[in-house]
Structure formats: C-alpha cells, structure tokens
C-alpha cells in the first residue's frame, strides 16, 4: 500500500488561512524542514499525521491518497423507505477492510466463475442471460429454481454467504454485498429476519451482482440485479403461461392464478405479477386488469413467515445452532474461517461484533461457540 499526502489540499488550506509553512510547523510541533519534506513527498509518522489532520481540519481522505489498494466495493439491498448515506457506505467499506484478513482463512477457491459480460435490462437480452444461467444449472425455463441452485451458484463463484439476524427493523439494509477486488472474493450478508417469499428474490438479486462484478455499487448494477432476479426466478415461459391462464378471468380468479404460481416457485405474488406485466408489455398484449395496489393489499393481508422462523425454533437461536445453519443450509465457509481466526490468531469478540454488525452480547456468544 502506498500512501501519499495530498499536497494540493494542504497548500490550499494554508492559503485559505493565510498561513506560512513555518506557522504550520509551529502548530503541528515539528521543524520547518519536516514540513518542507512532507510537501516534497515524504509521509508523516502516525502522531504527526494526526496532528497535521486536526490542525488543518482535513479529513483523512482529503489529506491522504492511498494507492495500490482497491477499496472494497459495496452494494445494499435497502429496506423500504430508507436512504443510503455516506455513513452507511463508510461503515460497509469498513467491514470490507476488516474482512480482508479473513480471506486467507477461507478454503482455496479456483472455480470457473460465471460472468454476464454485457448486462442489460432489455427484455430480450435478459431472457438470453436467464436461459444461459438456467441451462448451466441443468434446469429448463419452466422448472422451479430452488434455494439449493442459488446457494450452489454463490459457492461456485467464490461468493461467501453470511446469514445474519439483523431483525425486521432498525437496520438500513436487508442484504449487503461487499466485493474485495484485490482478493477477488465477495461476501454477501443476508438478513434472515425477512419474509421467506422475498428472500429468494434477494438471493437472486445478490447473485446478479456476483455475475456482474464491474457493476457492483452502481445504480445500473442495482437495476440489472432487480431485473435479472425477477427473470431468473420466473422466466418468460412461466410468465407467458401464467398470463394466458389468468387472462379473461375475474380479478379474484386472476389473483388466485398468480398466487398459485408464486406458491409453486416460492416467490412473492409481486414477483409473479411484475414478470407477467413485463411479458405483456413486451408481447404488445393487454396487461392483466389488476393494479399494483391490489397486489400489495393481497400480499399484506397475510402475515408471512420469516426465514429465521422457518430455520430456528426457538428464536433467537443458540450461537452454535446459528453457526451450524450457516454451514449446513447456506454452505458458507464464513464461520469456518472465522473459527480459524479465533483459534489460531486469538481474535476477540469485538472483531465479530464489527464484521457481523451485531450487538456485543451476540458477538460474545458467537465467539464462545467458535472457541470450543
């Protein structure tokens, strides 16, 4: 890692304040020559760097440029009604940096990765990408895409699933994608405290990010991931079949048809509805006579089970059960690697608290289970 001072920012700040280099040296408590050296390219020792930043009121990213290290790339699956701020992004990047030492503890991955080279939200191109993906999975366009198919794809593409229990409110995101470009590893945090019917869509959304690493963290990447997830879980052929069956029926019969498809494919009614709508638009056919509001009303009329409720009884689970589920259900090597860090390097609960973004009490339970 190469770190250099942003000389322009320093000189600009001196100019703004009408300060000389000698005044800066006095304020920081170093010699004039030291300041001259800094401006000529040498880098301050930690305590001088701290004083320099505070004296000039320059945040670290404005004062120092870091080269030869790729920043973690982050993408969120936000909760409804939340807004992503710099604080969310910095926190997620911080987790990314903290995950770097964990990578050497992961099993070697040399698999052939799947990449979608020209990601596009165009209906026809999406259809092709989905056909290709399903063909690689060995399933046809009408087949139900199972959780195991999705989990297997994460594993194959060296994406580490990290199931977390972040609760159903409070946190900003329900899924967090952190790609470490230097290490060529992706971590996908999935909140299990969400409705089962939404979970498969989010997994497919995250898988799209894994297939398109160059788009991760961009608006375009989010749009593609949403479009790809819907098309992968409920492809053109399924949407066409559902459309033809529902067409011409009463509103309640239409909803019954779409609900049955949603149930069969273990996706939400909204996913089926949106895919059918896209099919109709693309085919130049009339949309089904149902609106978004009706679909959401029907969805919200029943309290859906969460993934964590389906996996654990009682809730919250014992730390050991939670760790076992990560390995057995999600085929994740995350806790295997974390366990190695705890045992081989003596890493404490505070690290677990920060990388999983959980309360200290929970991180201590997990730490206790990993030590055994």
């Amino acid at each position, binding site marked *: 890692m190469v770190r250099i001072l942003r000389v322009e920012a320093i000189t600009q700040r001196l100019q703004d304040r009408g300060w000389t280099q000698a005044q800066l040296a006095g304020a920081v408590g170093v010699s004039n020559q030291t300041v001259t050296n800094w401006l000529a390219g040498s880098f301050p020792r930690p*305590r001088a760097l701290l004083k320099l930043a505070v004296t000039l009121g320059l945040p670290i990213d404005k004062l120092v440029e870091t080269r030869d290290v790729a920043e973690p790339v982050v993408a969120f699956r936000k909760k409804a009604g939340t807004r992503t701020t710099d604080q969310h992004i910095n926190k997620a990047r911080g987790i990314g940096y903290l995950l770097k030492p964990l990578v050497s503890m992961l099993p070697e991955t040399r698999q052939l990765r799947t990449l979608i080279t020209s990601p596009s939200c165009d209906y026809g191109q999406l259809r092709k990408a989905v056909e290709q993906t399903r063909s690689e999975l060995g399933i046809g366009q009408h087949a139900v895409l199972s959780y195991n198919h999705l989990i297997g794809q994460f594993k194959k593409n060296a994406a580490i699933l990290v199931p977390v229990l972040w609760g159903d409110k409070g946190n900003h995101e329900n899924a967090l994608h952190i790609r470490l470009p230097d290490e060529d590893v992706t971590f996908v945090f999935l909140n299990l405290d969400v409705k089962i019917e939404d979970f498969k869509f989010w997994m497919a959304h995250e898988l799209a990010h894994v297939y398109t690493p160059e788009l991760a963290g961009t608006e375009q990447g989010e749009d593609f991931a949403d479009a790809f997830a819907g098309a992968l879980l409920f492809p053109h052929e399924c949407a066409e079949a559902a459309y033809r069956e529902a067409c011409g029926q009463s509103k309640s019969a239409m909803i019954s048809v779409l609900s049955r498809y949603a149930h069969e494919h273990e996706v939400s009614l909204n996913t089926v509805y949106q895919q059918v709508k896209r099919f109709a638009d693309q085919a130049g056919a009339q949309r089904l006579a149902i609106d978004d509001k009706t679909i959401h009303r029907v969805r919200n009329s029943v309290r859906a089970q969460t993934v964590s409720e389906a996996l654990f009884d009682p809730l919250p689970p014992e730390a050991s059960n939670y760790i076992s589920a990560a390995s057995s259900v999600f085929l994740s090597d995350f806790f295997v690697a974390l366990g190695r860090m705890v045992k081989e390097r003596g*890493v404490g609960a505070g690290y677990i608290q920060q990388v999983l973004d959980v309360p200290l009490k929970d991180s201590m339970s997990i730490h206790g289970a990993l030590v055994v």
Partner: protein
Amino acid sequence: MTTVLLDTNAYLRLAKRIRPMLGVPFGPKKYTLAVLGDVEAEVHRNAALQFKFPWFDEQVLVEERLAARIRLTAEDKLSIDVAAGVLRDAVLADPLRYMQGSGSPPSPVDCRVLAHGHVRDCIVTTDDLGMHLLAAEFGIRVWHGFEPLKALLNAKAITTPMVKEIYDALEANGDLPATWRKARHVKFSRVFGRSP
C-alpha cells in the same frame, strides 16, 4: 487539572463502589475523572449491560455523569471527527495488528474516545488492548482501568478495603481483565501483598 476520560467498561468497573467519583479533583496532579455522553447511549442500547448493571440509572449517578460530562465546542467536535477518521483509517489499513491475544480492532466508537483524548489532551482509560496499541502509535495518553484506581488510592481518595472489594467483585463476575490481574501484586502490593 488533568482530565481522565473513562470508557464505558472502565466506568462500569468502578462507578458502583466509588461515590462520588466523577468531577472530583484528587491527588497532586488534580486528576478529574470524566465520561462521555456516549456511555449513556452505549448502555441504554445494550440490554445485556442494562441487566448486568441495574444501578447505572440510579438518579444520583445519572446526575453525576451529566454534571461531569465533557462539554465540547463546535471546533472540538470537528477536530474529534477528523482525529477519529485518522485513527479508524489506521485500524482498517492493518486490522490484524490489533487482533493478537483476544484483541479486536478498535471500533469507530473506540476511535472516537481516543480522538477525544487527543483533542482535549486528556488521559483515556480503557482495558481494551487494541486501543492501547493504537493510542501508543499516535501518542495519545492512555491508562488501564486499574490505574485511576491506583491514583485514587495514592491520593487517599479511596481506602484499601474498597480496592479489595472492587477486585473481588470483578473476579466474582468473571470481569477481571488480565492487566488488572497482573497489577494486583505489583501496583497494589499494599492491598494484596507481593506475588507469592
């Protein structure tokens, strides 16, 4: 006067038995113990801490914390933001460095506490060894949790039975840090005797 800023754990280890504790100068250097407002938030959002330390919300302690809380100017706040950013950046550049021997990389909150120490030129008291390492690197004065106890004892602001009581209570709760254990027969030999 030298302000000694206690982090949340350091405060919780002492506050039940030493009363009054905050804002009272003691010893020739006029040490004065203080806490940040963050202590309040940290305990109140953590059910386990609230359960373990039910006395935390006793009126007299709430008032004491409020009265002794460090007041910050707008300039201080800005400087603390900058300093905390520099410290956190150092942690993230090499997190492994702070993870030896049950250590953890200092969290954003830990970095803010150290940043307060730097900006307000006070001594930060913490039993987190990762924070000690970071503080040493950046020249921030830092104490282990037993050091204010020792300073209070030297200043006769507390008695030897009180020191013993605090050690016994922490040990009984499984909350006696290794550094306190090591200090028992060295720094507090008058209380516990020399190492057998």
